[in-house]
Every structure is written in C-alpha cells, then in structure tokens.
C-alpha cells in the first residue's frame, strides 16, 4: 500500500535535515503505529506524504500502491487515496463545514472519474456518519473547525476520513486532547474503517489509543529515523519505560 524508502527531508528555507532515511512499508489491511520523542519528525513525515509546502525531499521515495506520490499535488494525492488527520486541524473562517465536505467528496470523485454525489445522498451520509461520531448538526453548519473544541476538531477529522474513504489513513496524534469517551468514539470511527483494502499509520504518544486501535506493527521514530520496529508490545515498553532504553540500545 505505502512504501517509503530511504526518505531524506530537509526544510526548504533552512539547512535543517529532519528525516534522515526513513524506511517504512504499510501493507493493505494493516495498522502501523509510529511513536517517538517530540521533534523526532513524525508530523514532518505525515506532511511530506500529504504534500505540504516547505519541505524538500533530498533522497529516497514514497509510493502509494506503486505510484510515486512525491511528485503529485496535495489534491492529487488525496484523490489517489491519501488522507492525513492533522495534529492541529486548521480553522477556515467563512467556509462552511458542509460545503467544504461536499466540495472535497465530489472533487475526489471527479478526479477519479466517478459520478458526483447528489446533495441529498451526501446529506444522508454525512448525517449518519456524524451521528456515530456524536457530532451534532449545529457543528456541521459552522465554518470549518472555527470555534470547535480540541476534541471536536479531532472528531471532525475522523468524520472527513469516514466521508472520503481513503486508502491510506495517517492519523497524527488524533488522540491528543481527547477525553476518554471521545477517544473511544474516535477509535470506533477508525475501527469501523478498518478494511482489507485500507492501511493505517497511527502516530501517537500513548498506549491508550492503541488499546482501542490494535496496531499490527509499532515503529519508533527518533531523530529522523525509524530506530526500532516491533509488535504491540513495543508500545507497552514505551509506555512503561519511556524512550531512553530503546534509544540507548539502538545507539
């Protein structure tokens, strides 16, 4: 599904190398978790994969279902099936959540040569999905993320993911800022999308989310590299002992 090879990324405007050779392969149907200390490059990886400006790939490659995505525009990556649930979802005053969602859904359909969703079908689908995420209708009418609480923003990301039905879902600290119940809702939302044809890359600092979304593989990203890969037990080790031991062992 997603195959990253020897990915080196630096900042465009500064001589700062952030990713220093990341190798990662996420298979369809699998959930991979990425953990790692603050500033290790987790969000950078997710941004580079989704096509944000400001980063320069100096070496390596990233392919989604065999297609080199690094040359694509962000919207083309989205149409190819890439989705990033942002660590900090962006507020867009003046753009209604519904308008935004419908434009996005239909733009992707159009890009894939599919028929656009009718207004009523779209509405039906959003309402149903919003309901399971306990997002009320009032919130859907508001401008994108404006005035949403931290937890509401994260649930809104999952709603978008559910509507767009991507192939590869990257969740960047979707659990941070969520209360226990909201975390359960979000995890349920993700689990509902788990499917043979879909891969997940879940970035988190905490074991708790992984209690709900059971990962198949856990990676530790430190200083721009994946320094250790293991099963779910690796997350438990981080939870109990922090990174010191793992980093020392790899050094």
């Amino acid at each position, binding site marked *: 599904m997603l195959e990253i090879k020897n990915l080196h990324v630096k900042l465009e405007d500064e001589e700062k190398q952030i990713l220093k050779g990341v190798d990662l392969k996420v298979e369809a149907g699998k959930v991979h978790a990425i953990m790692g200390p603050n500033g290790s490059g987790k969000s950078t990886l997710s941004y580079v994969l989704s096509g944000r400006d400001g980063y320069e790939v100096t070496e390596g490659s990233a392919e989604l279902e065999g297609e080199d995505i690094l040359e694509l525009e962000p919207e083309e990556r989205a149409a190819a099936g890439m989705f990033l649930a942002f660590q900090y979802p962006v507020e867009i005053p003046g753009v209604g959540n519904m*308008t935004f969602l419908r434009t996005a859904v239909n733009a992707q359909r159009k890009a894939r040569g599919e028929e656009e969703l009718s207004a009523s079908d779209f509405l039906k689908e959003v309402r149903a999905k919003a309901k399971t995420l306990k997002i009320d209708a009032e919130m859907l009418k508001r*401008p994108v993320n404006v005035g949403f609480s931290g937890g509401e923003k994260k649930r809104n990301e999952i709603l978008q993911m559910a509507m767009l039905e991507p192939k590869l879902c990257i969740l960047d600290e979707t659990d941070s800022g969520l209360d226990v119940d909201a975390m359960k809702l979000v995890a349920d939302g993700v689990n509902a999308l788990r499917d043979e044809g879909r891969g997940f890359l879940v970035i988190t600092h905490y074991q708790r989310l992984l209690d709900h979304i059971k990962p198949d593989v856990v990676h530790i990203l430190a200083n721009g590299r994946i320094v250790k890969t293991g099963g779910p037990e690796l997350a438990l080790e981080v939870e109990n002992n922090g990174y010191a031991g793992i980093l020392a062992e790899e050094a």
Partner: protein
Amino acid sequence: MALPEVKQSATEARLSALTLPEGGCLKAARHAALSRVQTMGLPSRRDEYWKYTKPDTLVQAEASKAAVFETGEAPMFDGFDRLKVVFVDGVFDAEASDDLSLEGISIERIADICEKDIHWAKDLYGVLEARGQTPVERPLAALNTAFATDGVVIHVTGTPSKPVNLVYRHADEKSDAILHHVIKVDSGASATILENGPAAARFNKCMEIDVADGGALHLVRAQGRDHERRAATHLFARLGSESVFKSFTLTVNGVLTRNEAVVELTGDDAVAHIAGACVGDGDFHHDDTVFITHDAVNCESRQVFKKVLRNGATGVFQGKILVKEGAQKTDGYQISQSLLLDDDSQFLAKPELEIYADDVACSHGSTSGAIDEEGLFYLRSRGVPKAEATDLMTLAFLAEAVDEIEDAEVAAAIIGRLEGWLARRH
C-alpha cells in the same frame, strides 16, 4: 478665497462642457449647487481626500471612451419579481421600464417634477448633498446636483410588494451620464432598491436618501462587469430615530470607481450598515470612501468592506466614524480588508475615528494579506483542487460583507456573480 489656478481652469473647462437644465421647482437647488462647485472647485490630485485616487478622468471635460461590454449572461436581477426602471446611458427608457405604479411607493422622473412648481422632492433635492459637503467637500456630488439630466424621485409611503430595480444600461461608448435620485421613506414605511448595470462610459450618480422615524431602506447595487467604466457615485443618507438603512455594493471590474457614502444618524436608536465587496483584476481601481456621523443616542453603524485584488489592481478605503457630542451609547464598527492574490496588487486604507462622546463603543480594523496557506493546504489535502480551494477561501473572505445583505435570494445572486468572476480566472 480664490482657487488654485490649475483647479480653477479644470473646473471651468468641465463646467463649460455642461448646460444647466432649466427646471421649475429644482431651479434654486441647481443654481445653489453650481455655486458650490464654483467655490469648491472640482477635485484634483493635490486634494487630501483624493490622495489615493486620481480624479482626473472623472473631472475632465469629455468622458474617455469605454467599450460597451457584452457579458453573455443575463443582467443581475433578471428573474426577480421587481419593478424595473431602465436608464440607457443615463436616459430614462420608458419602453424598457415597467409601469411605475406600485402600491406603497411612488416613482417619478426628475424631468417630470421639474415642470411642477411644488413638489416634496424640492425639500430634499440637493439638501442632503449640501449637508454632506461639511466637513469634507464632495464637489462631484454638487456638480451632479447642478447638472443631473435624469433620475427618479421615489417616495416610499408603505411596504411595496417588490423591490424597485434601477437598471443602468450602457449603449454608447462615449456616454457621459449624470443621474440624480431622491428617495424619501416615510415613518414606518419600508422598501428595497436594487441597482445594477454598467450605466455609461463615465457615470456620475448621486442618491439622496431620507429615512423618517421607524422607516427602513435596503439598497443593493451591482456595478459591473464592464472593464473600462469610470464612475463616481455618492450616497447621502439621513436617518431618523429607530430607522434602518442598509446598503451593499458589489463591484466587479471597472477601470475607476469611487463610491462615497455619507450617512448621518440624526434620530436615536437608528441603524446604518454600509457594506461592499469588490473584485478587480489588472486595470482596476476601486475606492470606497465612507463618512458616518453619529448625532443621536444609541445608534449603531457598521462599515464592512472587502476587496479582492489581483494583477496589479488597486483598492482604496477611506472610512470615518464621527461621534458628535452627546451621541452616547454609539456602537460603531468598521472593518476594511483586502485579499491580495498576488504581489502586484495594492490596498490603501485610511480608517478614522473621531469621538466627542464618552460612553461609546467604536472599533475599526484594516488588514491586507494573501490567501492563508495553511487553510489552502488543508482544503487541498482533502482533494479540493488548488483553484477551487482558492475560490472557496476567497468567497470566505468576502462572506462578512455579503452577509450584510438581508435578502437570501439577493445574496445568492451576488455570490453567483462572485463565483462566476472567480471561475473565469481559472
């Protein structure tokens, strides 16, 4: 005091190209206005009030040519249930217009009332314009009062069932139109006026609006889509207690447009909202100049102006809130913002507050900036193509101004025009 020589000769040149219409009951007003123009002189580049906008082409004796622009789309308010009053190059066209009779409102041509000795409009024509000459001179408005060749006087006595739509068609590439309208809204009466169309190669329009206690007037105008138009418009409004006046202007294209609005809140608890959205590409200069005077207690005023500029277009905003002594509990709000779609465009703003009362809440803000890159990336990461995402963000930027339009159908029509303008630039 003698005028500077350059100004004197420019004024004389312009005046000598015009003839004062003979007019029964408006004669005195026209003569008084003419002497105001002669005293003030027409605007020149040296004038502080014209610092950001060159008045030359608005003042020169002959109008510059402007090609008649065929848009290929239906005029703005076609399809609306409305009473249509059509002017072609500034001349009333009875045949193209609807029957002017409608319950709750009377509409008469200026040319017709001139034949009468007594008419209510005599007490307003040129009166609000003259009041609006202090503290800042507006010579083009006085010129208009003196020389206007056509226009309508509208008396709103009730609540007409549909809006009056003043339609300005442009047919002659050299036309130089001067139109003057007077609108009087009786106590408790309420109406909507719609205006649209390119009007003329050069257009000088003045509208005087008097809203009595408890009356309401909504004005929505759409200027455009022609590119070579030069227009100077003035709107003078006086508001009685508990009255409401709301105005929204959409400006699409035009080489030079200066829209002045002068509003006086003279009765307690009155509300005035003046808003505008303009979109310009390339050879486009748009100037909103607004002066709101609070002269009563507990009045609210809002100025909301948004400009989208690209390819070297220029936007100007000069907006003032003057709160007179005793105008306590004034709630004044002013915002002027521009969205610059490239580095070549510019926005010049001069927001001003002058307050002589102590118990007031006034705020103003002015910003100028590019599209928010974070927001743009967020939209694109969800699959919205860049051009479409930019349009969404642009419409979002304009939303606060468009939201000032009360009628949903009118607002939707305005948004449709904005979408069209944006889409044509993909």
